[in-house]
């Protein structure tokens, strides 16, 4: 069953519109909650007068920051957020107060009646200003100006590396911020009864929401249940606890009635947590043969007003530079600063995207300087299975070379690169990404993923897992793994997932960890259940366990023509032991952390690799760039479900395409969002997206479930530089600033090349 395309188990309900998303849920007596947001980029909140709002008929509760005074945050080192602003607002759109009312219209009117006295403070919007301004502190915990964190990591002998180099390039690159643009906005509905608090929420991380609710609401965890309904896209934007989850819960407790909050599109943009804007300087030395001798990289990340995942983003920015090429010496310096903007966080391809763009474009420039073929320089420097990088990343399996060759072949590289008519070009770039982080976000010894499988006498099994299907298809993956091990049809496997009241803990859907970790846990659980099943059946049949095999839902003597008993009969036989038949599995990564400060970010039990080749058309008169196609080769270890894997590769490639040519999340000179709806935030529709050809490369990872590694994020990285490198082939200009915009392309062309 593994390796054959399977329709997703929730596909039909989604297509028919019967799948229940969070906003589809309606509970008896439900109230509507709404948040009042700051119109100022930076201000002290002197006084919030809620009396007029409270007096409005139909309003059931009004709360402010004082009602939820406990700070929280995704990372233990950045507990700097409040559900509603306490004393200070730090960006336009930050929530200040909230109401629960009988309907949305009353709630909206109530917001208009809340009177907030602000004392305006100077706002910092430019990250380079944030680096030096000591007179304005956006966060008190910033010691130096508004720097959240500075990082310096040095591996190997960098000076010696540059001395050995016969060619050194130093280039500057920038990338603007981008947003996730999930079609489903954030939504949460809270219900508080004598049984405790139940929160249905559109989240990638039910476990962290669970922990944060307990902390902020001061409620024991066992009194809280978090359920993730069907979810319409996350991409990192739902990867951490959000104000609406805390506010809906607090309002439900206050009112004793269910409260639902659904963000509108602008509120999603205010919430952000998207890609950081980057300014980067990259210096690389190579030998005459193009072998990398040393890399020096520095970057400044515009973090926005809060920590979010930012420290991890910062570390990833340097740590992932040692893949997929052999880098013998690396010096990385980075800083993340606070500015008065919506906070940036994790977005698909987290941390690696902007640096990978810089690295791959510079590598092409180096190849061009040396007269080497871009494919050749990549193959010469490639890492291989068994390598350990200079920053201690252990490569268990690697199909990078094969990816490069497959992508190049798909666009006819050797015949066409440098030989197409002016205005047309092909380009290629590589990338690599983690299959989950080896270390959890908060320190603990427990497994990162847990699965319980129970067997039913009717012949089916139920998989219980905390993993959050955010549209990537993890529920289908779990069903497939269980079905494979237990030799059952997909229909015989039920998946119950992402409900903290029922399912065992899974850390959630981020850093591309679910197939690898929950998949391994599921496989282990299924194998345990199978062993118990065999033991029961063997006893009943009077045969040895070794003589039995499981095939297509029946147990039989190995190579016997007749089935001995059905799966259901075997379950009943096994239950003769006197307890229900279950299997449990847990996945905890091996100890992979680097032995240095910061060595916890980057290590993964396995790395995916990829290479994309792009073909573009550049209109030199208008500066318009059309991407004709992307050949996206991705080493995912093993394709458990090829059609699902191709979907992930295509989705990531198209998202990279959008960030290359269109998407900009930024504010104007007053801190107001420039684009806050889908008309002005230009992300590609299906009609704008290029043709993407997914080329799945299978390197069979020894640790992955059936050999599988990540496939959800890694394919974003190479898409961007592949397009930029193709633009060079087409028009002879190197683009160092993303997104590439028609006027910047024209400017580059009129500058004549560099």
């Amino acid at each position, binding site marked *: 069953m593994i390796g054959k395309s399977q329709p997703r188990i929730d596909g039909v309900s989604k297509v028919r519109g019967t799948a229940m998303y969070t906003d589809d849920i309606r509970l008896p007596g439900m109230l509507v909650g709404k948040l009042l947001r700051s119109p100022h980029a930076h201000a002290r909140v002197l006084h919030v007068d809620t009396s007029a709002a409270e007096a409005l008929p139909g309003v059931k509760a009004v709360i402010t920051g004082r009602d939820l005074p406990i700070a929280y945050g995704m990372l233990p080192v950045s507990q700097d957020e409040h559900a509603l602003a306490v004393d200070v607002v730090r960006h336009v759109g930050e929530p200040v107060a909230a109401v629960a009312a009988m309907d949305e219209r009353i709630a909206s009117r109530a917001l208009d009646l809340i009177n907030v006295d602000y004392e305006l403070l100077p706002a910092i919007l430019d990250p380079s200003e944030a680096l030096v301004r000591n007179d304005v502190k956006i966060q008190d915990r910033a010691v130096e100006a508004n720097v959240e964190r500075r990082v310096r990591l040095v591996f190997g002998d960098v000076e010696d590396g540059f001395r050995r180099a016969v060619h050194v390039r130093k280039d500057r690159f920038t990338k603007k911020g981008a947003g996730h643009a999930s079609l489903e906005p954030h939504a949460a509905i809270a219900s508080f009864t004598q049984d405790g608090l139940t929160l249905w929420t559109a989240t990638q991380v039910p476990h962290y929401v669970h922990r944060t609710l307990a902390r902020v609401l001061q409620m024991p965890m066992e009194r809280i249940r978090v359920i993730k309904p069907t979810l319409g896209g996350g991409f990192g934007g739902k990867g951490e606890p959000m104000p609406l989850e805390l506010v809906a819960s607090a309002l439900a407790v206050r009112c004793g009635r269910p409260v639902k909050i659904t963000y509108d599109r602008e509120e999603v943009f205010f919430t952000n947590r998207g890609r950081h804007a980057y300014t980067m300087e990259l210096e690389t030395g190579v030998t005459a043969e193009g072998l990398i001798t040393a890399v020096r990289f520095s970057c400044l990340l515009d973090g926005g007003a809060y920590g979010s995942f930012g420290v991890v983003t910062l570390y990833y920015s340097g740590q992932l530079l040692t893949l997929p090429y052999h880098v013998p010496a690396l010096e990385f310096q980075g800083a993340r600063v606070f500015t008065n903007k919506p906070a940036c966080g994790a977005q698909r391809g987290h941390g690696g995207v902007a640096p990978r763009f810089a690295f791959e474009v510079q590598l092409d420039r180096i190849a061009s300087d040396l007269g080497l073929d871009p494919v050749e320089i990549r193959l010469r420097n490639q890492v291989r299975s068994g390598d350990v990088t200079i920053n201690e990343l252990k490569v268990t399996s690697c199909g990078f070379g094969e990816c490069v060759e497959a992508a190049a072949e798909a666009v006819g590289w050797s015949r066409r690169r440098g030989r197409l008519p002016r205005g047309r070009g092909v380009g290629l770039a590589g990338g690599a990404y983690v299959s989950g982080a080896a270390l959890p976000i908060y320190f603990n010894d427990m497994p990162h993923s847990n699965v319980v499988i129970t067997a039913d006498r009717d012949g089916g099994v139920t998989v219980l897992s905390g993993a959050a299907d955010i549209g990537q298809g993890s529920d289908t993956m779990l069903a497939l793994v269980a079905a494979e091990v237990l030799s059952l049809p997909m229909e015989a496997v039920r998946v119950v997932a992402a409900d903290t009241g029922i399912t065992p803990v899974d850390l959630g859907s981020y850093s591309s960890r679910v197939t690898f970790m929950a998949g391994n846990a599921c496989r282990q659980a299924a194998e345990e259940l199978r062993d118990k099943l065999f033991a029961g059946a063997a006893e009943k049949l009077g045969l040895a366990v070794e003589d039995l095999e499981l095939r297509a839902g029946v147990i039989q003597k190995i190579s016997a023509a007749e089935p001995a008993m059905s799966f259901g009969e075997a379950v009943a036989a096994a239950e003769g032991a006197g307890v229900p038949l279950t299997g449990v599995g847990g996945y905890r990564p091996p100890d992979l952390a680097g032995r240095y400060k910061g060595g916890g970010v980057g290590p993964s039990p396995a790395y995916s690799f990829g290479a994309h080749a792009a073909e573009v058309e550049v209109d030199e008169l208008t500066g318009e760039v059309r991407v004709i196609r992307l050949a996206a080769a991705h080493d995912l270890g093993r394709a458990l479900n090829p059609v699902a894997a191709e979907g992930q590769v295509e989705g990531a490639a198209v998202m990279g395409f959008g960030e290359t040519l269109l998407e900009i999340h930024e504010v104007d000179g007053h801190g107001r969002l420039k684009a806050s709806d889908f008309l002005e935030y230009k992300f590609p529709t299906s009609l704008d997206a290029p043709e993407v050809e997914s080329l799945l490369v299978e390197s069979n990872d020894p640790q992955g479930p059936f050999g599988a590694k990540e496939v959800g994020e890694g394919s974003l990285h190479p898409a961007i530089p592949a397009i930029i490198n193709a633009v060079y082939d087409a028009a002879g200009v190197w683009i160092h600033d993303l997104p590439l915009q*028609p006027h910047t392309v024209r400017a580059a062309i009129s500058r004549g090349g560099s």
Partner: protein
Amino acid sequence: MILPKFEVESPLSVEEAVRLLATLKVAMPLAGGTGLIPALKLGLHNPSVLVDLESVEGLEAVDCTGAGVYMGACAPLSVVAAEPRIWKDWRALAEAAASVGGPQLRNVGTIGGNVCLDTRCWFYDRTATWRQAVERCLKRGGDVCLAAPRSQRCHAVFAADTPPALIALRGRVRTARWSAEQCIRRERFMEDLYCDEGSRGLQLDAGEIITHVIVPPVISAGEYRSGYLKYRLRRSIDFPLAAVAVGLRMADGCMRDVRVVLGGVASAPIMALEAMQELEGREPNAEVAARAAQAAARAARPVPNQATTPGQRRLMVTVLTERLLCKLTSDQYSSARRDQEAMK
């Protein structure tokens, strides 16, 4: 964002519609609503009544059986864009209608609604929360244009696709209004409907609605040529950042009755007179087209209130004008030269 509360009236005749608009307080006409409903959600208007013209008998028809095109104001854009005779004789209109929004928007949006589309601006088409953070702009009754603060007027941009094409084709509108207890009808030239002041709106009387959009018969079939080209970042859905419509007649190898009309680069569709003078009576060739395109760009007045840059939008006027002229007349380039050679 939620819709404010309003009543919906569904009149069955034009007379009833204009009477309702004249007598009900704060009433607005509705013809599709793909522009109006989002604006209501943003709280930009607060009508107590919407008078839905789609219930009026006969306003959805597109008739091009006689001379010219006769379109009810509520004819869906998708119907206009699917009419083979319009593609054949009034191609600019077909191309413009086919380029509005995406398929769903063209199914719901109407020709009359598109003609009446409000001007758009980064600083105006915003939620209440966002607008709270800025001072009132001219279009909201304030006294500054946030897109061009040194200017004295509103620069909200005219972003409808079909009007430049309709003006290039010498289109007219029929209107109706209620006055002295009766329905007054009149006919106006499309080009007189607009004013290059973003906050002014259509040059119609209070309560006056467009009932029909008319395109006159082509002056000389076969020799009449027209087209519409549009620049936007996403070819799938966006409003124009720059657009050009051209209509002209080929007679004895020369361009006659030329019209060049720009969209998306000012607060109204702009007749590019200088460009038209460059072309009128001339034999088409690449050089003439390039000169006219330069002249057209001089008529554009983009300000930074839409995606990309004003410079890019102005450039695209040049490029699109030149490309459109080439598309419409390049078959004549060689023949003109051939004729010249023959005369020698």
